[in-house]
């Protein structure tokens, strides 16, 4: 929809050209969320696409994915390591279709911090390390698992920008399994879980059913029963997300069941 309050677009050609932060500034990723609701406070959009960041590139430490990498680009990356086979399935867990994938960005999905955001699940599951750029240009790293603290709430400071996410080599080498539950086929996630196994054991990431991503780590692959118990313990009443996309008790039940399924799937 038209954002009537917006007065100006800034299109910085490099991170150095990012404007000084001011009230009313909003970072524009793909815009698929931003333009879907009235934004009465927005006065100036900072167009991150103008930065021209490379969507994804190999570094010695791992795969660096730009915040501005579009979901369609992420899904179509060549699967060069086992965990990359999770990329396309995770993208398809987005509520929006391929038309949204063509525009929406990895960073935008993370920063929105919706419980059902599939990039949250993916980056937490793959030990993503977020590179954040402060308004003065200062950089800091933050593990993806610490980024989202509550429903629609992240650790981003005012004016801070998510620039990229590093998926470390160790995580890329892991085997992963993704499971989703929804009230409707291809619908909004009511529970979205990713399990990975590799050096360091088994990890389980629970999202959508909870207000923020939950990450459970196990030294070795436990039994499905043990995983279900751990998921049940983690999904305490206060962490369950209550919205129209499923009753909290049902979401919890589904998440627990999917946790067991993932453990089974990784055993074989």
């Amino acid at each position, binding site marked *: 929809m038209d954002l*009537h309050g917006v007065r100006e*677009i800034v299109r910085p050609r490099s991170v150095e050209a990012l404007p000084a932060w001011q009230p009313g500034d909003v970072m524009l990723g793909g815009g698929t969320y931003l*333009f879907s609701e009235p934004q009465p406070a927005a006065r100036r959009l900072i167009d991150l696409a103008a930065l021209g960041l490379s969507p994804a590139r190999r570094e010695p430490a791992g795969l660096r994915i730009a915040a501005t990498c579009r979901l369609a680009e992420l899904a179509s990356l060549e699967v060069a390591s086992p965990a990359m086979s999770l990329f396309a399935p995770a993208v398809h867990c987005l509520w929006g279709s391929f038309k949204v994938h063509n525009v929406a960005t990895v960073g935008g999905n993370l920063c929105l911090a919706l419980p059902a955001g599939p990039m949250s699940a993916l980056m937490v599951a793959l030990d993503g390390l977020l590179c954040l750029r402060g308004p003065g240009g200062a950089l800091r790293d933050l593990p993806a698992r610490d980024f989202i603290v509550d429903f629609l709430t992240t650790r981003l400071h005012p004016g801070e920008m998510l620039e990229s996410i590093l998926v470390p080599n160790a995580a890329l080498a892991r085997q992963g399994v993704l499971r989703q539950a929804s009230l409707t086929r291809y*619908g909004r996630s009511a529970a979205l879980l990713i399990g990975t196994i590799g050096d360091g054991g088994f990890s389980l990431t629970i999202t959508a059913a909870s207000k923020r991503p939950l990450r459970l780590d196990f030294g070795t692959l436990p039994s499905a029963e043990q995983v279900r118990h751990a998921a049940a313990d983690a999904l305490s009443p206060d962490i369950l997300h209550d919205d*129209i996309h499923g009753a909290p008790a049902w979401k919890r039940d589904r998440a627990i069941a999917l946790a067991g399924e993932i453990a089974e799937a990784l055993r074989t």
Partner: protein
Amino acid sequence: MISIVLNGRAVTAPATPGQCLRTFLRAQGCNGVKRGCDAGDCGACTVLVDGAAVQSCVMPAFRAEGHAVTTIEGLAEGGELCPLQQQFIDSGAFQCGYCTPGMILTIAGFDAVQAADPARALKSNICRCTGYAPIADALDGIARCDDRVGIGASTPPPAACGVVSGTVRYAMDAPPDGLLHARLRRSPHASARILHIDRAAALAIDGVRLILTHEDVPHFPYSTGRHENFRDDPEDTLIFDPLIRFAGQRVAAVIADTAAIAEAACAALDITYEVLPALLDPTAVQDEGAPQLHAHAPRNVAARVQGQVGPHATIDEVLAGAAHVVDRTYTTQRLHHASLETHAGIAWLERDAAGEDSLVIRSSTQVPFLTRDTLARMLQMPRERIRVFCDRVGGGFGGKQELIVEDIIALATLRLGRPVALEYTREEAFTGASTRHPMQIRVRMGADAQGRLLGLAMDVLAETGAYGNHAPGVLHHGCNESMIVYNCPSKFVDGVSVYANTPPSGAFRGYGLSQTIFAVESAMDELAIASGIDPWRLREINMIRPGDPMISHHDTPHDVTFGSYGLDQCLVLARDALDRAQTPELGDGDWHLGDGMAIALIDTAPPRGHYAHAAVTLREDGGVDLDVGTAEFGNGSVTTHVQLVATTLGIEPTRIRVRHGDTEAVAHDTGAYGSAGIVIAGLACHRAALALKAEMEAFAADHQLGTDPGAIAARAASRGRTLSGSGYSDGSPRSVAFNVQAFRVAVNRDSGEWRIVASIQAADAGVVLNPMQCRGQIEGGVAQAIGGALMEEVRIDGAGRIANPSFRSYHVPRMADLPRTEVLFADTYDTTGPLGAKSMSESPFNPVAPALANAIARAAGVRPRSLPMRADRIWAAIREQSGEMSR
């Protein structure tokens, strides 16, 4: 300024910084880029950017700078439809057509991944009309139309080319120059009194032209609900009312140079409310001491229906002597129509040769004539000075049998002398229009040992919300055909529709019957289980048959007859099809199968007066002009009208030019509601064609001509004569149509998830004038009803506000959510309808929810008695029952 290559042409035009691409493209004249949700959920605005499909409402316009954009207008090359556009016509893959350009462009943007799973790829595309089956057929290259002409031919709609190429006009397309925009300020409170409106800050905004509040408009009590007799609905509504009765009620309108300015000025109005206690619980509004919402309605009763027939004084007496008894209460929820075109209209003035101004309104309405008549009374203008018309309406489903935007734009245009538009946002379509009436329905029934019904009683509590639009009609209709369908010596109805401080309910496909039939048909299934009688057999034992009296709860004479009867055929057709249905492999998990069925009867037209005029004129070129008042919103009425006229006159359908949905077209038309398109307006068209045929035959005989219309037309023209015929239908007598729905579902008892394994609907539509059109109505009705049965629910929060006013939070079925429905037709010839036809537009909706509930009850082992039957609720019910059992 931004520069793009638009459909192969370089375009440079201004765009505001926050503008989305959709608005920019429409400003360039690309009216095929539709606004459906404005939030990236429905896909109506889909375009291709450098060949990639995007939803242009969530794409910033400036991002298109330097790129190639293709809209529906650019898809046809050299004026020839592209193959996909032609396939949409051949498959009948649209009804209202509002979603069609976006649907076609989405498919045009498929790559191999999307083509392999089109249902997933189309999850951000909503078609509310078709149920997607013909769209899937279009993808598969399966045609539904045929080259035959006449009755029984699957002729495409006359507007087909315009729909698939984006050139047909909806309310907001091709606006006049100098257009001003209205926006509405709404109350956040469910119950309040407006103490003061300070408009200084709003008036100070540059570009504000007019502010309308209750201080500025006539005090004119009316109802937004429209019927032939305007007193059928309580006149309890004011244009602006200082008393607020629901959260979302309009408080003021601002008219400004742009929608942005109008919106800013709306926000700048400083309104002081005295907040009052709100009545949100419909079960408490009749309590002693409850505040009264309307002076005319003690105990907040908007409408009541009571009656009984039979030898017994009470249902309890009957049940005491019954072998099998059911006594259960069923609950239905609020539903949103979700027509993809929101309520919208544009008003302007036209000056005639004598220098007198007429008010012209193009709006998205099912009832142009009734809207005109109400405006005439409201504005104290002669009817002749007001024209209301609609070219094509982007979906109705009952939601546009209301006067929602036309009063504001009419008042503003008359004050300002300039064109004024008001287009509802999707959120307003939820919060500021109407929903289906929520109902609580207690059904008591008793049968003897053989399963013969002895008594049937229905107690209904309907919630009309803040205003009574359609409250009496929906309640009466709901308590009528649902009771008539069964023979039973004793029948009792006690129904009430109550006011509450909740958003107004209104007309919705089925008009009360979808709720009550859910209750009665669920109860019949419970009776089948209690008595051990097969549910199909139980219907056969009790259902009405020709010669039986049609009695709901009173024996007042009526004009409904068995024009034809096909319920018996429908039962056999549906049952045999269900027996034949293949059950796929269900895979791992605790899946259980269940079959369910339900039946529905509907009168073929509304009671209490429904009229239509039609006129046909032989043109000089041998073609025919058809004028008919009824609106076309995808129902296909106009398609059948053309067929009726073409068949009667023996000319090609393409030789008929239609003017419809226009108060200038004919003397009167009550409107496109109550499934009246074929049986009333169609009858008028048929009669008009017969009259013209007689004229032509007489003229031909006088002039020694043959039967060739071209020759007759040429001779008539040379003699200065115009041959024409007119037709009229008063909508009486009426007949009955039938629908039988059968489902096989699988329910996973661990998760509560369901899958529809088989869906069959058998319908008695009399003679099927156009199989493609009629099948489309049934597939679409079943699809919409599956949404209402399984997924959809408008929720009201603790403050009385609608909690989920978007397609993101209100799940309208997508292609992936729906099964294929096998559609079967009974073979009957109706003696009241045109050439044997009956209505078939609301009724396919009505048996769906109970048939699903009955199937789920068997598959899940627990019976859902409230809608929607979401997986999480089925799961909770299974849990609750197993918990009870383990205790």
